[in-house]
């Protein structure tokens, strides 16, 4: 029997390429969800991983870092929060595009 495919629908899922399955410590929303200000997860609401190894929604950690009282420190470990490329200023570097596309 010959089957002719006329049409197919691809369905994909994605998740951030981070080791643990966890929530953002600041807003307590799962990393695959958005920060409280956003509607759509993904590129519009990225994650930011500090050199110290702690990750947050970029929008969440931005809110914290711009507070004078944060002294630029990671909310988890109180080390200086630096983006992955060592720019010094937090939140200039974001994680790469959603990884692990599975079709």
């Amino acid at each position, binding site marked *: 029997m010959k089957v002719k495919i006329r049409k197919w629908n691809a369905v994909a899922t994605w998740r951030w390429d981070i080791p643990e399955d966890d929530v953002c*410590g*600041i*807003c*307590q*929303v799962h990393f695959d969800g958005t920060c*409280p*200000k956003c509607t759509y997860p993904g590129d519009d609401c990225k994650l930011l991983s500090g050199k110290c190894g702690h990750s947050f929604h970029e929008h*969440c950690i931005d*809110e*914290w870092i711009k*507070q004078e*009282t944060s002294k630029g420190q990671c*909310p*988890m470990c*109180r080390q200086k929060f630096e983006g992955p490329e060592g720019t010094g200023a937090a939140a200039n570097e974001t994680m790469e595009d959603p990884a692990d596309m599975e079709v």
Partner: protein
Amino acid sequence: MAFASKRLGKELAKIHGSLPPGITLVTAEGFQEWLLDIQVLDANPIYMNKTFRLKFKFSPSYPIEPPEVTFLNTADRPVPMHPHIYSNGIICLDLLGQQGWSPVQNVESICMSLQSMLTGNTKNERPEGDEQFVASNRRRPRDIDFYYHDNTV
């Protein structure tokens, strides 16, 4: 208010699920003010058989800003005796101040910190200058720069 209310909604759902022993939710109507009761679970004679009531006040910027947390004084809920707790219920604890706060803290973790602050205490006394502080203080707790003179208690 979106940020604070979404975060508090998450916390409330978790609190309704379970809370550590000795911590109970009294009221959480809305996302501005919650009341919780705490008890000290070990046999510390200062706090035995007593329950203390905490009032949490949240700003729209919670958890970027710390909540205002005080002990209430009611007929059956005294303000616990402690060298860092004033008789008007104001608590001198670094994690509740601008300097020690971190947005990864939450209502449950604050309750647990206060519980352990009481558990480890052996001094049945008020902070130095309590009477004068209670009579004269008009500032909000978070604006007070407490002098952490004794970190052993």
